């Protein structure tokens, strides 16, 4: 980084050749294809392969038995890996479709798997690194100088494990990641600068393996992301799979395909899908049995409308979140090879009331935007990208409930402080569990880290004031600080994700929170009623213990009975009953509590230290 430290006024124009010399690139590391781009005399351009002139690099890596170096970009035998992006940052349990490769749990951590390539063992991180190395080589050959820094794009909805894994892959490839930016944001950046447009634009990004939707406001050199959402497990691959499964049904044979046969079939189906404009007929040959298939538009709709609707439901929810309607959107930018189908474009048109924009190459826009951002971060620019955090960040409360501190779609950087208190008497420490996600309970969110604040002065429950501050910078790095306000005891951590959350849970984070919102709310309300009840119970038990002489014989039995009964009720899952019984308990014990309080006041007036009269 030190080589970049040069004093330039913010916003000043730089030497037009500076970028070419510093070797900064933008990389779109895609599920199906990858690209590298850089700024040439102020204009972002895709860097082609020096020999072949190819602009796309298929994200395909083959490992041969007799050769150490992998072959990237084409299938040459040996073991070939495709769509590896779908596996990055995932553990074995998170993978929903059977893989055509031998996979096993790794020793690297729960979010990395081992894949067998003949006698070699590879992780998705290493395979991604090989793609990045190839892109780096391509750029260096073309630019004729070393390339060391890059902005790499990721799906907006990539979770922390996937982002971390992508950074590690870049590191392995010898690239310093200036920043990971969200693919739809990169696309809008490139589009906005190229067309010089203003207003609200949406990016519909359906890649090979992921779906992202973002809404941006473009205004005088500012690219303000208003909202972003997505599904990291919905992409063109799923369209292929739906189609392949339908064709298998049409063959009407009870055939069992091996994983590699199925992979071959998917491959055939994909090229058929990509050429739907030319032909709607497909001939399949599996195990020597030939079948003929046809896919007219009506049938396309039948097989894909479920998947398309899944994306449009998310689109509507995202717009709704920021109080916009589809008609407020001035243009819909399409990104990703999977947005080429006519039926998808028609559905988008009918939702927004206008046809999507098709004047930019959906394969290249993202890499161009990444190159622009790389330039901006190293040399400064007249343009500014204001991005948001795609997922909420919160703190686990008693009962496992999450208190959101930074909400999703909050502009970066941001720093937010919230005050919390102790739950028990004489509590001197506090465990803080930082989580990411939209759900109500921490077990359904991604755990990012734990830390402990100690040195809280002892006192009654609820008397301490603990300020917890979450700071999220423009690079998405989170710092959490907790401070006890009386003694100014501080504790802070830079959050590095503690891997291990079940990705299946993250997968439909937002959709789930939409669907399960009501259940969550009910459980949450029950938990809070229980917590209240427990507090009352605990307070009461302490009073009983410390004031045995105040309990008159007649009362004693009644109160003990009421306490016992209430304990049983707390075990039940009936919120209304808990609340009603708590009121009853309070009423029963009212006189006793009052006399305890009278004593306490008296003692305080007498100058006795209340601490000596501790409740516990």
């Amino acid at each position, binding site marked *: 980084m030190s080589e970049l430290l040069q004093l330039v006024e913010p916003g000043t124009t730089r030497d037009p050749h500076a970028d070419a010399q510093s070797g900064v690139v933008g990389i779109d590391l895609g599920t199906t294809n990858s690209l590298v781009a850089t700024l040439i005399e102020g204009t972002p351009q895709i860097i082609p392969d020096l020999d072949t002139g190819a602009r796309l690099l298929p994200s395909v890596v083959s490992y041969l038995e007799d050769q150490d170096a992998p072959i990237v970009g084409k299938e040459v035998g040996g073991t070939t890996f495709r769509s590896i992006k779908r596996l990055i940052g995932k553990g074995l349990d998170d993978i929903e479709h059977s893989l055509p490769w031998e996979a096993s749990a790794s020793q690297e951590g729960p979010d990395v798997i081992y894949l067998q390539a003949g006698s070699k063992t590879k992780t998705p991180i290493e395979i991604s690194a090989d793609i990045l190395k190839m892109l780096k080589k391509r750029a260096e050959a073309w630019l004729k100088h070393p390339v060391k820094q890059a902005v790499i794009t990721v799906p907006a909805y990539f979770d922390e494990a996937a982002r971390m894994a992508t950074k590690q892959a870049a590191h392995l490839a010898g690239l310093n990641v200036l920043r990971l930016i969200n693919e739809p944001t990169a696309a809008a950046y490139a589009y906005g600068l190229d067309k010089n447009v203003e207003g609200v634009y949406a990016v519909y990004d359906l890649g090979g393996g992921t779906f992202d939707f973002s809404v941006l406001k473009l205004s005088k050199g500012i690219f303000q992301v208003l909202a972003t959402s997505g599904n990291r497990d919905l992409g063109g691959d799923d369209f292929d799979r739906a189609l392949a499964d339908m064709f298998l049904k049409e063959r009407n044979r009870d055939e069992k395909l091996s994983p590699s046969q199925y992979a071959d079939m998917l491959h055939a189906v994909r090229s058929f899908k990509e050429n739907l404009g030319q032909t709607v007929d497909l001939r399949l040959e599996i195990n020597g049995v030939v079948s003929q298939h046809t896919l007219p538009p009506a049938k396309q709709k039948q097989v894909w409308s479920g998947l398309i609707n899944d994306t449009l439901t998310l689109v509507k929810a995202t717009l709704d979140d920021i109080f916009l309607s589809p008609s407020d959107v001035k243009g819909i930018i399409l990104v990703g090879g999977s947005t080429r189908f006519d039926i998808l474009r028609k559905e988008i048109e009918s939702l927004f009331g206008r046809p999507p924009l098709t004047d930019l190459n959906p394969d290249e826009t993202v890499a161009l935007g990444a190159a622009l951002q790389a330039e901006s*971060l190293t040399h400064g620019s007249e343009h500014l990208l204001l991005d948001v955090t795609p997922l909420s960040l919160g703190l686990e409360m008693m009962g496992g409930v999450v208190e959101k501190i930074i909400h999703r779609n909050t502009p970066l950087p*941001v720093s937010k402080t919230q005050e919390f208190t102790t739950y028990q008497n004489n509590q001197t420490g506090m465990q803080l569990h930082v989580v990411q996600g939209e759900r109500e309970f921490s077990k359904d969110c991604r755990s990012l880290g734990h830390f402990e604040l100690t040195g809280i002065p002892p006192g009654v429950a609820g008397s301490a004031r603990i300020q917890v501050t979450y700071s999220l910078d423009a690079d998405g790095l989170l710092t959490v600080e907790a401070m006890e306000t009386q003694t100014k005891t501080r504790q802070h951590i830079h959050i590095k994700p503690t891997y291990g959350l079940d990705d299946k849970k993250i997968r439909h984070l937002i959709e789930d929170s*939409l669907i399960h919102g009501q259940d969550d709310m009910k459980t949450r309300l029950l938990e809070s009623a229980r917590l209240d009840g427990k507090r009352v119970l605990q307070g009461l038990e302490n009073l009983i213990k410390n004031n045995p002489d105040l309990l008159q014989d007649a009362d004693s039995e009644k109160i003990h009975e009421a306490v016992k009964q209430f304990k049983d009720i707390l075990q039940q899952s009936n919120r209304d009953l808990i609340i009603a019984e708590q009121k009853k308990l309070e009423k029963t014990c009212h006189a006793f509590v009052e006399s305890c309080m009278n004593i306490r006041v008296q003692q305080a007036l007498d100058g006795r230290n209340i601490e000596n009269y501790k409740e516990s």
Partner: protein
Amino acid sequence: MSKNPYMLFQIPLTYDVDKQQIERTYFRLQKEFHPDRYRHVSSLEHEAAKVQSGHINTAFRILNDPIDRAKSLLEAHQETMDDAIEDPDFLMDIMELQETLEAQPSVSFYESLVERRQKIEETLRTAFLNKDLKTAKQALLKLKYLDNLVKDGKKKLSLEGDAKEIQKDLSTSQ
């Protein structure tokens, strides 16, 4: 402590604000203070910009949110928000509304909530215009309740809409 958003954005101390002007100021300030503009300058300034830019983001959010804006407007007038609602009937009303929302949410009921919310906001607006801060405080307390009800109502209605859609999807796929 961050500056009062009204001071930071240098806008008149009124409840109604010019959103377009605020957005222009927001963009202008971010163009100046966003840390990305200092990343290539020096780490010291980069750090300082991070803090400033965060304040600007927070202030922008507050000024665009009716409740937080009213709160910071009161703060700008050196008023604190530690009052309680002086109208016990209001709290009873809220509880009833909550129950109705829980038991039988409907579009027309939701619309009536929106209308009530608007009425209270109008009281708040008038109170600020008349510099009647005491009334403004009470109206703001009430607005918070109604605002939550409206939000809950919206969530409930959209949840039910989704549930219906899911049901529909299931029935067509069979």
